[in-house]
């Protein structure tokens, strides 16, 4: 079984000249190549079954060091394809037996791939994360009246302190929602993702928004300026912009709902 080669799928595009991928290396350490069918182009990497077959893949995915190398290599290919034209990124670990199987998938899912490619052509994904800003130091609470015992007084002061903290946190949540609404008005499509696990980010601050915004590429400067302006408007929160990204967040084919501000929002499906 080791030594047998299968194909790792990176992304699907159309109208790609394979020479634009010259020198690009895939997750298996070998050069990527293409498979063409149904007017589409799949970008694939040959990989060894010994490392990427079902059992070894399951084991390797449990290894964070291996996962990091593979995730970055996968993303680098997706990104390169995206710079050459519209791209549908595929998820990590989408592996097929051979070219014929990939051709069949392209033909079977042609409508889905085409719909995504139409949606993302000449558009860029930007990520905006919003964190709660560190709370300012609070003045000491006024002493409690002495008609009750010291225990009750302590508990009352503690309750007031928590109430103030709660209000501060609620203000930050509200401001994050305003930021999302403002950015959504600049975008063609938006997606709100779960906040990142703070042990993965290494950030102590609470993440209040993890948004993805699909913006016409010609409006990128303007979007950046909007983010900068919003950054300066609120003391309760801190913004972080990432991108440009290939359209990972807008490549699924799922139900969508229209938000109050009239932008089509793609929601993560209930799990």
């Amino acid at each position, binding site marked *: 079984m080791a030594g047998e080669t299968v194909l790792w799928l990176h992304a699907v595009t159309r109208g790609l000249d394979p020479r634009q991928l010259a020198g690009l290396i895939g997750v298996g350490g070998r050069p990527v190549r293409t498979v063409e069918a149904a007017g589409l182009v799949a970008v694939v990497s040959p990989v060894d079954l010994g490392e990427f077959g079902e059992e070894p893949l399951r084991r390797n995915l449990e290894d964070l060091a291996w996962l990091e190398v593979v995730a970055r290599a996968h993303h680098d290919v*997706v990104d390169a394809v995206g710079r050459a034209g519209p791209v549908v990124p595929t998820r990590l670990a989408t592996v097929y037996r051979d070219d014929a199987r990939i051709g069949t998938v392209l033909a079977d899912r042609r409508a889905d791939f085409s719909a995504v490619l139409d949606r993302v052509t000449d558009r860029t994904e930007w990520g905006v994360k919003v964190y709660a800003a560190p709370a300012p130091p609070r003045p000491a609470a006024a002493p409690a009246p002495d008609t009750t015992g010291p225990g009750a007084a302590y508990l009352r002061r503690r309750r007031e302190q928590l109430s103030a903290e709660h209000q501060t946190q609620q203000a930050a949540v509200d401001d994050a929602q305003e930021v999302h609404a403002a950015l959504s008005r600049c975008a063609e499509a938006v997606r709100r993702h779960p906040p990142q696990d703070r042990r993965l980010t290494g950030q102590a601050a609470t993440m209040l928004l993890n948004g993805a915004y699909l913006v016409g590429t010609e409006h990128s400067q303007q979007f950046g300026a909007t983010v*900068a302006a919003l950054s300066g408007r609120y003391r309760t929160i801190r913004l972080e912009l990432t991108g440009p990204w290939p359209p990972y967040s807008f490549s699924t084919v799922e139900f969508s709902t229209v938000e109050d501000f009239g932008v089509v929002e793609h929601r993560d499906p209930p*799990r």
Partner: protein
Amino acid sequence: MSHAPQSSAMVGRTPGDMASTGHEPANLADILERVLDRGIVIVGDIRVSLLDIELLTIKLRLVIASVDTAREMGIDWWEYDPWLTSRPRRPIEADAAADEAHALEADAAAEEARERRLDREKHRA
């Protein structure tokens, strides 16, 4: 655009600036959440469910091995993780602060009632 994605603090940065700042590697969290949880979903020939692996592995690798030790440090996200339990999830800590406030309010009321009772007993004696 001919530059790679990169994380950037927002101060003074615009998309146009990114081209001139060089290729800083993008944040691993940002990459992992995209390649594991986004992108088109099509079933390959190799059947590996990332849903089984992604969250548990990444989270568990970053948490102290002992569940009890982690809980003592206040790390208890799995008690709210819909993947692991059926308890409702609390997305932000404002709820936790409110709950603590309500609990302390109940404690404060109980404490006041106890002290009033002690006062009555003292005066009766």
